[in-house]
């Protein structure tokens, strides 16, 4: 059975030559090849588009506190399911260069029992840059109230009259009156980081197991490969669910985040290990490995310092292509209510509110987070595709 992998031409990574020596043993060649990689990558237009979107999303994730006009749990129970706020530039009282919104209140229509909005058109609340708002810990360093943009406060309520709220809901509000746009900003932190954390865990296990397996062929290889096979032949989604149910539903969000990441890495590493093993098999008999052995370096050092760096080109592509799996896995679990728990927002658990389909038409803006999941996934895919082309030896040589 050991022969299966090596005799299967479609899946045999052993025939894939290590493309660029990115982790070259001396520093100079490493920088040169990084530059070469960037030069080759720049040629793929879609790849560059993917990279730009990913960069924007990471920017949003890092500066979410400032970019979001409200905190993720800032709720206004009187403005449930508010539609996206319209920005006005002019009204009966003339026009203004600065956009403004009207104070709003919501009420339940006594005939249809639908939530309706009513605006106080006599008062303008202007949109302003750099306003004071909810307190947040900027970059985890210092406390500040500063937000990139926000709106003026509403006029004080007249005694006996209705209370009006001036809330800027760029993408509407959700079922407890929280700003969907702000929550998307905060949610990007989870989706954009989970792939990196998960991939690094999976990568360490996968590359090490693959490296050891390919280097020490024989009994060790046999055992490790059998373990990989068992892992790969377990039904993935069912296993994910079973592992999720190992822990109670009411864990803290941070614990759930790490737990989900670890179980996804735990399910995902064997694929990587197999491919790395194949590549190591093709490298281990090259002259420089014999030389390293002759010099008397120990085996672990040879694997980590001399063999694994040579699989680096493949690993970059595989990491980039693997990240969407983590994003989709987390949001899939969260949509089912098994992932990140409220009130911490993730793009997945925000979509959970969309599962009430008969009501969805009343507030379709809760679907916005799905678009962001799609955007993140497609940009990583495009980026991975561009990287693969850039690292393809057939293409770089011509």
């Amino acid at each position, binding site marked *: *059975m050991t*022969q*299966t992998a090596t*005799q*299967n*031409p*479609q899946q045999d990574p052993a025939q894939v030559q290590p493309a660029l020596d990115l982790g070259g043993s001396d520093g100079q060649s490493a920088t040169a090849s990084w530059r070469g990689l960037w030069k080759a990558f720049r040629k793929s237009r*879609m790849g560059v588009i993917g990279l730009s979107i990913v960069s924007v999303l990471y920017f949003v994730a890092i500066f979410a506190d400032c970019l979001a006009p409200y905190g993720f749990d800032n709720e206004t129970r009187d403005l449930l399911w508010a539609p996206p706020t319209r920005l006005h530039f002019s009204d009966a009282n003339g026009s203004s260069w600065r956009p403004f919104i009207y104070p709003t209140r919501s009420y339940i229509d006594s005939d249809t029992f639908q939530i309706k909005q009513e605006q106080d058109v006599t008062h303008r609340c202007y949109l302003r840059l750099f306003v004071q708002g909810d307190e947040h810990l900027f970059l985890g360093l210092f406390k500040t109230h500063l937000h990139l943009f926000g709106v003026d406060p509403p006029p004080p309520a007249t005694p006996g009259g209705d209370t009006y709220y001036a809330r800027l809901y760029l993408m509407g509000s959700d079922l407890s009156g929280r700003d969907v746009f702000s929550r998307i900003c905060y949610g990007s932190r989870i989706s954009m980081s989970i792939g990196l954390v998960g991939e690094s865990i999976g990568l360490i296990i996968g590359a090490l197991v693959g490296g050891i397996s390919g280097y020490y062929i024989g009994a060790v290889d046999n055992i490790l490969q059998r373990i990989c*096979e*068992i892992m790969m*032949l*377990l*039904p*993935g*989604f*069912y296993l994910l*669910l*079973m*592992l999720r*149910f*190992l*822990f*109670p539903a009411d864990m803290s969000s941070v614990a759930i985040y790490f737990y989900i990441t670890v179980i996804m890495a735990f399910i995902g590493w064997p694929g990587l290990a197999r491919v790395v093993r194949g590549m190591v098999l093709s490298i281990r008999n090259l002259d420089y490995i014999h030389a390293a052995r002759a010099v008397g370096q120990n085996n672990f050092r040879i694997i980590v310092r001399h063999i694994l760096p040579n699989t680096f080109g493949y690993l970059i592509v595989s990491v980039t292509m693997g990240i*969407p799996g983590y994003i*989709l896995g987390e*949001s*899939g679990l969260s*949509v*089912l209510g098994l992932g990140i728990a409220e009130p911490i927002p993730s793009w997945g658990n925000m*979509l959970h509110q*969309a*599962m009430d*389909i*008969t*009501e*969805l*038409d009343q507030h*379709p803006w809760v*679907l916005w987070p*799905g*678009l962001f*999941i*799609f955007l993140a*996934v*497609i940009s990583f*895919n*495009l980026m991975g*595709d561009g990287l693969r082309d850039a690292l393809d030896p057939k293409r770089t040589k011509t």
Partner: protein
Amino acid sequence: MRSYIIRRCIFAVVLVFISTIIAFTFLKLSPGKPGAADINPRVSQAYLDQQQRFYGLNRSPVTQYFSWLGVMRFIGKDTRGGLLQGDLGLSFKYQQPVAQVLKPRLLATLSLNIITMLFTWSVAVPLGIWAAVKQYKLPDKLLSLCSFTGMSLPGFFSALFLLWIFASHYHWLPAGGLVSLDHDTLGFFPRMLDYARHMILPIVVMTFGALASLQRYSRGNMLEVLREQYVTTARAKGLSESRVIYKHALRNAINPLVTMLGFEFAGLFGGAALLENVINYPGMGQLMLEALRAKDQCLVMTTFLLGSIMLNIGNLLAEILLAAVDPRVSYV
């Protein structure tokens, strides 16, 4: 080859066996009592104890596992049979034999996945060939954009999006599920139509998602074949382009695709699990989540077992098919 297949089958049986042990261990380690979510607080403790005894849950986990497997019956220590005797056990969530609970779910999932597969193959393969023939021209670029979109669009999101438009806004399609409320009162044809109306949306969503990889794979195959020398020869001797492509190249391009069938087979089962839960489709994926929520032991074990078996058969099938179409591959 034959001895390889036999060895591989034995290995598959061992693997499935190990996977059931893993599943059972995880299930027993998870917190909560079986069925606790559904227990009425007014039910007396005596009744609960009796239930526990009836389902054999008062025994040690190891005994429970072997009893599920049928070994206990085999050695005469249990009156109820297990897997070895063809008895899948009782589901205490549904208060029915597991086989009875599974049957409609299995049918629902398999029909959804098989129809999707038929659609995917009949659309993706021609599209892939077409894209290869028109490489780097407009159709190829458009198709590659489409397949990137299909690959990246999360099924649960596109399902919710389509449900918003077609079910919630325009009411053209039902909002999830498999049957309407008045399903049982309908005649045969309206009943089939009812099924079809419920299945359109998941099929569209899944086909669009699955299209991408198969389309790109068949495009790659065709491109590889078009680079072969015999295609150049065929062109050089003056054959018309359509004859070169459809007579000479096409067959060799389609051949390797059959290996994908094996993997498709493996996905027949769990492929739609998440989507089923999102659109409330009564299939295996939804059943698994329900069973896990209730810690319904026999139901979880059987579902997991079926998933594991399908995956193993699928992979074996893929290996055999690969050897069948590619003479360079031989197993020893």
